[in-house]
Structure formats: structure tokens, C-alpha cells
């Protein structure tokens, strides 16, 4: 790195990196230069002229814009001369000429840079005698953002954000001169998934939050530093509350996680916290009806029933389901209760043991962000396997786009749909669900053919690899997987050539019985191409990583120790003062398929996933549901316990890069008798005769540190407001090559299409659906078809169809999309009123047919 340059600003010596802009150098020296268009996260344009400073030169001093002028050795800068003050005042006078002075009704009022700068640098009086120019006010540029063109100061920040970060130029400047306005392009609403960030960076109230419109005043709200709970990126946010309700959510900077951005789901979908139909009191089924009861009655009933089932059928007839939407403390308490007090390993969560995951998540998110900020890229190639960050992890998507555009990273994508990120023209490997392992063998085969860039240890097994991947030749790839063999070769070559490739796969790619083969296939590929340290499994829920870390898995104890590990068993038996069960437990699916007689469900709703599970739940001896809302599963329960959710109780969440972060209590529910999940569990443990004394979440964190060595030292205080990553080095295993084979399901004539499912950001789930103002963007009950298949079937956009598989049938409307590959039908998960589980019925791969509705 070149040496720093030294310059003088207002008589202060400042040392700055060469190329740094004067505004940033002044910031280091704590000298304020007022700006509108300049923003530390956006490229400079220098269009507002607010940042004028005097720079001394050979021919006297001149005024320059600090936001576009780089520092130079020996530069002498003045920011507080009378001339600068005059220019600042005149400039603000011009900006204010036509500004409507809406402050009293403007949501930016109280935190508005224009207000602040006018008070500090502006003229005291207006020079305009003519009427002000009128433009569009209260104009929706999407269902979430309101534009007021009169308030806009034409700083281009919104335009630049959408271009530089989202790579979606959806806003632009229209007309000229005095008539210049910001507007959407061709009448198309702004639909970038992180569009809400332009509200945060707009220096005036021209862009405001539709969902929180007029619901807050910056000086009236209490601010809580928290983390988002909609996906596993774990963006840092600030929750603004007033009178026990969440008023708005804005992004908070964490350079290790989300920079300062958050997605629109995280920002706007928060009505569920203060939803109307929240459960407020325990319910117990009496004569077939759920009736309100006291906590003691409900807990006594559960304890008695659990003991009865245990006596009659043994502990293995009892199971518990945790939740990746709930914090670490409660998940830990759940598995401890069932392991140590009940004595069973039947503990799991959705996408837990039924998905072949890896323990350690992404090496680091900052590594993906690095190409944008640092000189030493930590990744140069990113291979996404069966994961669609644009819909599933929007801020990861943002980082990836930036890594590609600014950092020159390359993208390889394998996905059954031609997802949005494929627009960056990396190799796209389409595949049929159910042929993943074959595709991976094909990739391995192509990689084995590379001359350079292979791992030297792995190369010694090359002959074996070639033998078992023989079948995955070009024909198999083209016919079975429907993947372009040329793209496979290109991808393999890129992986071999890459110095540091990151391979990411998601739960969609590794569900069901093929999961382990797919995981091994990926591990083979990573090992052979030398990227074994950068193979990552990422869950999709806010605490997917944490739920695994806490041991909410039938075969893993807290800290990812196997249930057979004598070290861990000894440690936990001592800590919990019990004898641990030794037999492996049942997975989520096995329990719901009828493997248990009594089920304790904490924050999960399996009944809405699959009709058959709903029936099975009805037949249980005991079903206890701990929930926020009366879900389909809760409606079937014998006892429903009202829980406090995210933001209502202190909790820690672990994101996809193993960063443990705090989500403190921000609102209280004065009318409600709901309790924190861990508190309910510890009362129940006491009823069952255990000695549990947890006063608060912090007490549980202290114990988690003892139970799971990887969490040692990660206490509430230590985490601070930026969180801490746990160290994965202890969990590294020696890489090896494993033979992988996949049994192919035969296609049938009757069901010509392969069902593709997955997550969409704006789904109809309980959390998102509660914000009614977002109904317009929610994905409806649709089936996506490729243009080719739609033509073949004679279907047009919006046609009503019946989609059926051998397992069941759904009524949906057709959506024709270029993303969907010919031969497949795309139905997202958790759409309002259309559980795709009705077609899958427990299987992972399913074939369907689409017919015009009668």
C-alpha cells in the first residue's frame, strides 16, 4: 500500500490514504463539511454543491467540492472562511427556494439533514416572492415507498443506490432545469428487494416509508439495537418503538454483516409483532374446545400427561420440535428439557436432520463483502448450488452483486430455476431436482480432467474418482440432469483455476434421502478443486445456524458433538445432573410421520405444511404447542401456550456466518400473559421435578457457554451490538473423497413435469402476511411455467389450473416465467392457502401434471 499523504484542514494536520476524498479526510479529523449528494457508500457525483471548501493553490485559493476532490500531499484546505459560509448559505437558499417546507407533516422531520444544515449554515429568510413550483406529492413509487417530488433536492442518492448496489436502474431523473424530477421508469414500480434503503439515505423527506407512514416521530420513539429475524443473514437493525408497539425498522451499520443495508422484508414486515390475534393466555382442550386456563393448570396438565406417556410407551414415544425462528436460549432449553428430564433424543426442527447440512456455515460474510472494500479479495469465485439469494437471503444477494460488479468476482450458479443472479453470465447449470448428485459427479469428472489447480492430496485418488464418475458423462448430464455439458466444463475449469472459491448450498439442495450424497458430492468437488475450507451450508431462517449449534437435532448435542461422543456426554451429564439417552432420536419428518405419541412443538407449524401431518397430529396422545398465533398446528393441540416472540424478550440469534448477535426486548405486552419460551420450559422442567433456576436469558447463555465449548465466552455483554463469531477451527474435519451415487426416479408419462419448490421473499407466511399493506407484493398461489411448456399446454398468464401429483392436487393460477426451465413447474413454499406439501406429501422430488381447471 502506498504511503499516506498529509494535508492541512483548518490548520489541523490530517493523514489520509492516497485517493481518499476530502470529505472523508475531514471526517477523520472530526471537521464537519455539510453534504447532500455525497454518501460514504456511494460513488461521488458532486451535483449538490453543498460541500464547497477553499483550497489554497499557486494562484490563490479556490472553491472546490470536497466530495469529488481527492486528497493530495501538502494540500491546505479551509472549511470555515467567510467565503465558504457565503457559498453554503447561498446554496441552501437555492435548495430551499422551491422546497415546500412540509416539516410538520414530513416523516423525515426531526432527523432531516436539510433541516439541520439550514439551521447551521442556511439563510434565515426566504428570498422567494413568487409562488413555489408545484410537483407530484404523495406519489407511490411502490407499495412500500412514497415519493414527494417537491421535497427532493436532486442529490441522486436513490438513483445511485439502485444502480450501484442493486444494479437495477429503476429510478431516474426526468425533464430538465427547473422541472427536473425523480421518477420511476416507464411507470414500473420500484421492485428491487432492498429498495427501502433509499428511504434511509434520502437526505430529505422525499422518500418515506409507506408502511410506517406518520406512525412515528424520531423524537418520540425508543430505539433498540437489534437484529432482523426474517432470514439467516442476520442484518443489524434498529427497532423504533412507542407505546409498546414497533413503529418502524431501519438499518444499522455492521461492516461484518450487512454494511448498513437491510431488505424490504426486514424493514417493512413487522406488523406481526403487535398483531391483533396474538395468543395471550394458555389454552387447554376441555370437551373438545380450547378454553383459557391459568398457567399452573396448563403446566400441571402437560407434566402429568408427559409422565403418563413416558410410563406407558417409554421416553422414545415423546418428541420435541424446536424452531430456527427462535433464539438460542429457548432452543437450548428445549433440547435440555427433553434430553435430560424426559430422556429422549427425539429433538429436531424443520430443515434440521432432514437436510444434510454442515456445522460451520459461511467462513465469513465480510469475506464476500471484501472485494468491494479491501485490496485483498477473500473470494474470487462463488458457486451457488441450489440456493437463490435474491429471494432467500437478499442482503447476501446485494453483497454478491457488488462482489461481481466491483470486485470482479465470478459467479457459477446451479439451480433448477434460472435465478436472477444468472444475469451476470457466469456458467448456469440448470438441473432437474433429483439429479443433483449426478450433476455433481459430472462436475467432479470435469474437474478431474483439469490439468492445473487441483488439490495435491486429492489428486492421488484421481483414478478412483474417474471410475465412479464415469457414468456422469455428457449424455447423462444432458439427458438426465438437463444440464448443458459445456457449462459444466466451464464451471469445473473456473473452480480449478480459482484461488479462493466459495461454494454455498442451501437446504433446498440437500433435503431428503439424497441429501448426504449431495453434501458428499459437494465436498468432493470442493476438495478436489482445493476449496475444502470454503464449502458452506447455509440455512434460511434467522436462527438456522443457532438451532443446530444448540443441538436441536436428533443426533447432535449442543456444540455439534455427536450423541456418541463420550467427552461431550460426560460434560453434559455432569452439567445437567442426569443420564443422557444413547439411542439416536427421530428427525422432524419421522416424528411427524407418526413416530411419537406425544409431541411438544415450539414455534413450528407442520400442520400447514402437509395435510397428512395435520391428520397425524390429531391422533396424538398429547400435542403441546408453544406459539405466538393460533396456527393450524395450535388449533389441533391439547394445550396451547402463549409465547413471547422476537423483540419481546431478550434472545441471541446465530447467523449464517456463525455470528451470535443480540435481539433484545424492545416492546412489552402489558395486557398479555405470554411468557418467554425458555421461561415456559423451565417452569415445566420444575413441574417435572428438575431443579432449573434460570432468572433470565443471560443465565441460559452462561450455561450454553459451558455446554457447548464453541459458545464459551459469548455472553450477552461480550456480544455487544455487533455480535461475535464463534470459532469454527475446532470443528474442521479432514477432507476426503467419498464415492457418491444417486438412484434416479423414473419419469412417467402421466406426470410430465418436475416440481420445483423453494422460498420466495414475500411469501404468505404468518410473519409476512400480518402486514396488510404488503398484500399487494405477496406472491399469490401461482404455478410458474416456462414459456415453452405454457404454449405446449395452451395456457396463458393467469389461467386457472389444477396441478396434481400422485399425492394430491392444488388449484393455482399460471405465471409464465423465463426463469422456469422447460419440463418443470415452479410452486413456491408457504403461499397463502396453497401448501405445496399437498403435492409433495413428504417426498422431496415429485412429478406433476398441469391441467386447465374444470
Amino acid at each position: 500500500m502506498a504511503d499516506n499523504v498529509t494535508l492541512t484542514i483548518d490548520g489541523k494536520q490530517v493523514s489520509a490514504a492516497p485517493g481518499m476524498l476530502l470529505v472523508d479526510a475531514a471526517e477523520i479529523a472530526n471537521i464537519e463539511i455539510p453534504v447532500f449528494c455525497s454518501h460514504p457508500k456511494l460513488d461521488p457525483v458532486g451535483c449538490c454543491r453543498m460541500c464547497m471548501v477553499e483550497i489554497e493553490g499557486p494562484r490563490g485559493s479556490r472553491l472546490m467540492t470536497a466530495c469529488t476532490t481527492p486528497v493530495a500531499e501538502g494540500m491546505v484546505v479551509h472549511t470555515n472562511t467567510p467565503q465558504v459560509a457565503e457559498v453554503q448559505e447561498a446554496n441552501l437558499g437555492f435548495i430551499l427556494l422551491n422546497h415546500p417546507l412540509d416539516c410538520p407533516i414530513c416523516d423525515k422531520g426531526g432527523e432531516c439533514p436539510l433541516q439541520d444544515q439550514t439551521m447551521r449554515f442556511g439563510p434565515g429568510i426566504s428570498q422567494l416572492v413568487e409562488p413555489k413550483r408545484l410537483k407530484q406529492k404523495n406519489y407511490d413509487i411502490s407499495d412500500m415507498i412514497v415519493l414527494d417530488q417537491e421535497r427532493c433536492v436532486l442529490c441522486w442518492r436513490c438513483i445511485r443506490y439502485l444502480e450501484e448496489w442493486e444494479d437495477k436502474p429503476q429510478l431516474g431523473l426526468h425533464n430538465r432545469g427547473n422541472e427536473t424530477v425523480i421518477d420511476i421508469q416507464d411507470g414500473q414500480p420500484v421492485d428491487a428487494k432492498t429498495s427501502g434503503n433509499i428511504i434511509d439515505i434520502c437526505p430529505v423527506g422525499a422518500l418515506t416509508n409507506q408502511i410506517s407512514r406518520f406512525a412515528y416521530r424520531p423524537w418520540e420513539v425508543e430505539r433498540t439495537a437489534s437484529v432482523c429475524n426474517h432470514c439467516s443473514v442476520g442484518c443489524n437493525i434498529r427497532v423504533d418503538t412507542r407505546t409498546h408497539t414497533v413503529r418502524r425498522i431501519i438499518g444499522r451499520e455492521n461492516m461484518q454483516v450487512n454494511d448498513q443495508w437491510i431488505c424490504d422484508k426486514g424493514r417493512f414486515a413487522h406488523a406481526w409483532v403487535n398483531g391483533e390475534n396474538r395468543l395471550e393466555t394458555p389454552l387447554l382442550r376441555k370437551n373438545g374446545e380450547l378454553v383459557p386456563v391459568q398457567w399452573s393448570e396448563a403446566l400441571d396438565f402437560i407434566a402429568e400427561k408427559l409422565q403418563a406417556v413416558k410410563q406407558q410407551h417409554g421416553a422414545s414415544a415423546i418428541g420435541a420440535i424446536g424452531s430456527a425462528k427462535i433464539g438460542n436460549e429457548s432452543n437450548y432449553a428445549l433440547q435440555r428439557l427433553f434430553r435430560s428430564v424426559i430422556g429422549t433424543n427425539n429433538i429436531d426442527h424443520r430443515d434440521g436432520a432432514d437436510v444434510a447440512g454442515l456445522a460451520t456455515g459461511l467462513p465469513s460474510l465480510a469475506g464476500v463483502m471484501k472485494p468491494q472494500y479491501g485490496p485483498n479479495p477473500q473470494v474470487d469465485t462463488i458457486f451457488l448450488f441450489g440456493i437463490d439469494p435474491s429471494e432467500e437471503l437478499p442482503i447476501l444477494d446485494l453483497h454478491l452483486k457488488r462482489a461481481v460488479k466491483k470486485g470482479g468476482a465470478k459467479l457459477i450458479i446451479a439451480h433448477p430455476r434460472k435465478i436472477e443472479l444468472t444475469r451476470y453470465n457466469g456458467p448456469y447449470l440448470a438441473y432437474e431436482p433429483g439429479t443433483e448428485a449426478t450433476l455433481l459427479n459430472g462436475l467432479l469428472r470435469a474437474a478431474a480432467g483439469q490439468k492445473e489447480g487441483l488439490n495435491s492430496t486429492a489428486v492421488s485418488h484421481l483414478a478412483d474418482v474417474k471410475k465412479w464418475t464415469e457414468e456422469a458423462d455428457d449424455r447423462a448430464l444432458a439427458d438426465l440432469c438437463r444440464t448443458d455439458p459445456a457449462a459444466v466444463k466451464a464451471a469445473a475449469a473456473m473452480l480449478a483455476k480459482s484461488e479462493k472459491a466459495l461454494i454455498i448450498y442451501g437446504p433446498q439442495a440437500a433435503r431428503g434421502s439424497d441429501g448426504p450424497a449431495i453434501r458428499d458430492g459437494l465436498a468432493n468437488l470442493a476438495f478436489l478443486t482445493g476449496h475444502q475450507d470454503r464449502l458452506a451450508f447455509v440455512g434460511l431462517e434467522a436462527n438456522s445456524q443457532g438451532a443446530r449449534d444448540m443441538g436441536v437435532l436428533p443426533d447432535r448435542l449442543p456444540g455439534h458433538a455427536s450423541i456418541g461422543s463420550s467427552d461431550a456426554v460426560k460434560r453434559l451429564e455432569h452439567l445437567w445432573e442426569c443420564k443422557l439417552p444413547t439411542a439416536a432420536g427421530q428427525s422432524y419428518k419421522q416424528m411427524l410421520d407418526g413416530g411419537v405419541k406425544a409431541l411438544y412443538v415450539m414455534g413450528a407449524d407442520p400442520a400447514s405444511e402437509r395435510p397428512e401431518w395435520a391428520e397425524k397430529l390429531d391422533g396424538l396422545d398429547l400435542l403441546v404447542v408453544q406459539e405466538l398465533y393460533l396456527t393450524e398446528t395450535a388449533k389441533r393441540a391439547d394445550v396451547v401456550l402463549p409465547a413471547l416472540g422476537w423483540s419481546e424478550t431478550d434472545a441471541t440469534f446465530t447467523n449464517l456466518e456463525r455470528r451470535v448477535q443480540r435481539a433484545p426486548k424492545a416492546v412489552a405486552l402489558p395486557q398479555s400473559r405470554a411468557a418467554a419460551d425458555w421461561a415456559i420450559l423451565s417452569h415445566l422442567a420444575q413441574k417435572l421435578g428438575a431443579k432449573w433456576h434460570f432468572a433470565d436469558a443471560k443465565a441460559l447463555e452462561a450455561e450454553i457457554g459451558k455446554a457447548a465449548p464453541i459458545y464459551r465466552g459469548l455472553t450477552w455483554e461480550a456480544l455487544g451490538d455487533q455480535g461475535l463469531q464463534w470459532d469454527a477451527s475446532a470443528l474442521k474435519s479432514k477432507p476426503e473423497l467419498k464415492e457418491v451415487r444417486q438412484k434416479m426416479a423414473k419419469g412417467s408419462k402421466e406426470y410430465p413435469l418436475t416440481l420445483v419448490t423453494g422460498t420466495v421473499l414475500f411469501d404468505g407466511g404468518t410473519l409476512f402476511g400480518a402486514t396488510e399493506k404488503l398484500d399487494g407484493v405477496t406472491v399469490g398461489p401461482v404455478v410458474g411455467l416456462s414459456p415453452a411448456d405454457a404454449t405446449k399446454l395452451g395456457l396463458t398468464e393467469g389461467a386457472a389450473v389444477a396441478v396434481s401429483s400422485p399425492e394430491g392436487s392444488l388449484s393455482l393460477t399460471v405465471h409464465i416465467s423465463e426463469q422456469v426451465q422447460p419440463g418443470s413447474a415452479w410452486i413456491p413454499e408457504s403461499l397463502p392457502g396453497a401448501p405445496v406439501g399437498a403435492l409433495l406429501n413428504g417426498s422431496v422430488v415429485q412429478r406433476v401434471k398441469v391441467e386447465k381447471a374444470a
Partner: protein
Amino acid sequence: MALGDYIKGAIDIGKAMGVTLKHLAEKPVTTEYPRDSVPMYPRFRGKHELRRYANGMERCIGCMLCEAACPTGAIYVEADENDPLNPTSPGERYAKVYEVNLLRCVFCGDCEEACPVEAIVLGHDFAMANYERKDFVLTKEQLLNPGEPNVIIRPE
């Protein structure tokens, strides 16, 4: 005691009686409240009123500046968006909830000072006694001045 003292005493009593007799004939300075009412200074600060415009629209735009200005936290405002077809106040925003807690209020007038549209005004009603605590929290309906639309602008 000297004779002079007696005479001086008699004169003083006479003087005092004179004053008494003089006032006996004058009009009384006290007011028989509540039968009679006192004339009010124009800037007297009594119970709050929310004003309307001549067309009946509410002046208040729910900006919450009065709430911010109030030194005792007596005011509570919740704003909402006007229905464009049937607006409550001019512009985009109106006060959905407006409450003044008279038990907290110190009648300083900071709220009317802060109000950008002269919606909240301290009126001349000072008879605010009541029987229950909750009745001291005035709602928007109680505060809205139904009578004369748009007459008093800030008294100064």
C-alpha cells in the same frame, strides 16, 4: 395617660370609620361566582381547545410538535393519513388521536406556541373540576371547538 392621647385615639377611630362609611356606599370589588363571571384577560390560558377552519376542517395536522414542546408530557398524539376523498384536515396528515392530560398540564402555553397551524389554543375555560381521574384526560372530541370556526388566532 395624657388627655392628648385620648383625643388622638378618638380622631383615628373617626378616620377609620370614615373609610368604612365611604366604602359602604361604593360598589363591591368581589364577584359572586358562579352567579357572576369575571372579565377575562385576552391572554388568559385556560382549558385547551382544538380549532377548526371556516369550512369545518380540523386545523390540527397531527405533527406532534405540541407533544414535543410540552414540558410535562401532557399531550399524546397519534397521526394518520387523510383519506383523500374525505379529509379530516388539509394536506396528507391528521391527528387520529389527540389527548391532553389536565392533571399534568401546567398551562404554560408552550403547546400553542409550538403549533405551526394554530390548532391547539389555551381557551378561557378554567372550570375544570371533575370527579374521576380518567375524566381529566381530554379526548380529541372533547377538545375540538365545535362553535365558532376559525375565530381566534393566537391571542398575542
